């Protein structure tokens, strides 16, 4: 008896879903998507993933030795990351970081699809937060649609104004935070509030405020459809083995509505309630297969699972699954897929390179320019003299005195470097030195010579550079 009552209750809930199902339409770009919000595993996961962006907001306030811990000082041509100072000379590491991140994106896409889009992308996250606020102010999707259609009234304007005001505030905070990574954050607040920020700071703030407000507030999923290059790239990096949110058509089809709380004989598990479309932030129908609009946020899995609970069917009609598995093919183990292996090797190389770079980043660097006009000069003693310009780069924060010596060429005399040189902090300091060698000692018209540089008070800091000693033939 109680079984039947429960069935009836479930039937009632499902009827309610059918009642609203006409509201959920596949996105063709003509209407604003008002997605339904629903609790669930992936909804929770999405919030956690989204909260990693708090690092973006709070990062600039972190201090390290009295300075901003992470500061990309563009005018000063210096990146400060805790104790490490990266100068333009170390930019090769940046290319490895970019390579690493690009391949990371590729490998993640191959394995679990567009997880970046669904869980981490700023566009997705900001839209999620904006629509969450929208729901707080304007209510459920049905109410929002009604409000949109309603004629202008004081009430409508009040509600809308509050929402837009908050959106603009978030947008401004986004812009300010972005700028804060490039200049001192506390000073930046002061500068903005005393209207004494630089034109660049105002410009970037304006750009980000307008950009965030328009992209997250209005363009929303249209950005993913039409503007975002990553969406296009990521979609082609999927293969038949990628685990992505997939509708199990074997189990679900033929789909059909329940009749009196019961599945019609011969129908699959999909009861055609449209809930998966209802919750989709980009408004696609996952049951049609892989869709260019699908950002793999997996919210449809939450929705479908909740419906399966109601009709007492197992979870997973929509689940993370590969096409091969659905079609009953043997799924290759992870580490036997060539794509995964190749990506993994590239990532490892980039990672090792970055670590090597960071370990070997020296506080001192030297470049030597050999004078070209004239290449060499004969002195009154008959000796041959070469002139060099030393460019000494001091990456530390203090003025450093350094000594210069030569290596690898016997009989050569270094002139002009008797006293230690002073190297200014964070800058290149040029010095001129000469090398002299008796003409008889010259073995060829061009011989390699190394300049070595050692800190006087910091002997652990050193640098070396290969140059040439030139003479007559």
């Amino acid at each position, binding site marked *: 008896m109680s079984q039947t009552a429960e069935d009836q209750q479930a039937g009632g809930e499902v009827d309610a879903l059918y009642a609203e199902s006409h509201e959920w339409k596949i996105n063709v770009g003509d209407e604003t998507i008002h997605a339904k919000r629903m609790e669930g595993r992936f909804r929770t996961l999405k919030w956690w993933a989204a909260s990693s962006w708090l690092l973006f907001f709070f990062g600039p306030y972190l201090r390290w030795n009295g300075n901003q811990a992470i500061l990309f000082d563009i005018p000063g041509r210096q990146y400060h990351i805790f104790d490490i100072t990266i100068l333009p000379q170390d930019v090769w590491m940046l290319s490895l970081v970019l390579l690493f991140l690009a391949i990371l994106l590729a490998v993640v896409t191959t394995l679990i699809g567009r997880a970046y889009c669904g869980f981490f992308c700023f566009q997705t996250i900001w839209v999620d937060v904006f629509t969450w606020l929208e729901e707080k102010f304007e209510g459920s999707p049905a109410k929002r649609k009604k409000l949109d259609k309603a004629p202008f009234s004081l009430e409508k304007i009040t509600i809308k104004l509050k929402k837009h005001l908050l959106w603009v505030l978030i947008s401004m905070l986004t812009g300010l935070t972005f700028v804060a990574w490039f200049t001192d954050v506390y000073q930046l607040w002061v500068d903005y509030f005393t209207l004494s920020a630089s034109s660049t700071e105002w410009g970037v703030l304006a750009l980000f405020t307008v950009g965030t407000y328009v992209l997250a507030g209005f363009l929303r999923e249209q950005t993913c459809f039409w503007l975002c290059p990553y969406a296009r790239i990521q979609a082609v990096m999927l293969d038949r083995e990628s685990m992505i949110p997939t509708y199990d058509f074997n189990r679900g089809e033929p789909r059909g509505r329940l009749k009196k709380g019961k599945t019609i004989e011969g129908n699959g598990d999909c009861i055609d309630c449209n809930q998966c479309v209802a919750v989709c932030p980009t408004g696609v129908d996952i049951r049609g297969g892989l869709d260019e609009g699908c950002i793999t946020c997996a919210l449809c899995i939450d929705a479908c699972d909740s419906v399966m609970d109601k009709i007492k069917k197992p979870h997973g009609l929509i689940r993370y699954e590969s096409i091969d598995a659905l079609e009953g093919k043997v799924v290759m183990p992870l580490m036997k897929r060539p794509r995964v292996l190749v990506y993994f090797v590239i990532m490892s190389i980039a990672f090792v390179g970055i670590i090597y770079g960071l370990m070997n980043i020296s506080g001192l660097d030297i470049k030597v320019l050999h*004078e*070209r*006009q*004239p290449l060499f*000069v*004969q*002195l*009154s*003693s*008959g000796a041959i*003299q070469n*002139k060099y310009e030393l460019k000494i780069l001091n990456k530390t924060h203090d003025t450093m005195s350094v000594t210069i010596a030569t290596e690898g060429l016997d009989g050569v005399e270094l002139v002009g470097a008797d006293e230690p*040189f*002073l190297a200014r902090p964070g800058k290149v*300091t*040029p*010095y*001129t030195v*000469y090398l002299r060698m008796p003409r008889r000692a010259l073995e060829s018209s061009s011989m390699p010579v190394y300049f070595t540089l050692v800190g006087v008070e910091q002997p652990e800091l050193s640098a070396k550079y290969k140059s040439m000693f030139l003479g007559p033939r």
Partner: protein
Amino acid sequence: MSENNPFPNENNTGHFWDDTLRELSNDPPGWWRIGFHASWLWCIVYFFLYPSLPTLDLEGYTKGSMGWTSVSEYKEDLAKIDQVRQKWEDRINDPETTPAMILADNELRNYTVRSAKVLFGDYCSACHGSGGAGNSARSATESGYPVLADDDWLYGGTIEQIQMTITNGRKGIMPNYGTRLSEAEITDLAKHVVALSEGSEHAAGKELFMGPTKGGCFACHGMDAKGMDALGSANLTDAVWRFDVAGGDDHRQASALHTIAHGVNSELIDKASRNAVMPAFGPLGTRDLGAGTIKKLAVYVHQLGGGQ
């Protein structure tokens, strides 16, 4: 075509291809029209703000309300650069600042060297070559121009002496011995000069060199043949030759022969005399570069490789 339009109510142009392919006459998108109108409106604004149209007499042009010209923008930028340079220029132009003080201050020295590189190219490198590499003569009878990057100086290589040389110029004089000595004697002397630079000597030539009646080169070149800064007489014992010939040591005797026979800067009495004049760039010269520029050039020359 349009009489039997299969899609009568869809606002098409009536042009069909392959049954269904057709051209619609929709309005352009709103954003496109906004951009279009904004563009021509900006054109009008631009015509008022900036110089744009020739005037009717074809002589002038409309000035624009902002008063902008490319020349004024260039001058403003130039003024900004000058402002950055000013603190260095002020120190260099200060009469109290000597070139030695510039050399002692690495930052000021670096600024001076970079700034003087252009000046050296303008005023000096035509003769002395870029970087002070000199210009060797192509034959024994030509004079060439001295190398400034080596450590051999006719008039001294201290920073003050270099400054003096640039300011007042130099004109050393060597008499022509072609009329006073026989050809054999001149050859002996030339051999001696070549030997001196190689660390030895030539007996007959040395006798003439030190001779009280004939030759007597020591009077100017010194008893040790090392020359005198005050006279600008060459040091004959070192490996650097003022009148070197490009391409090697074989020409040295011929070069010395020519110098001894015809002298230097004695063209009034010997047409074949060598010409070796450094013009003055100070107040006495045809073009006064000013004390600041001369200081810069002195510092530049000093650091080329042989300053003392």
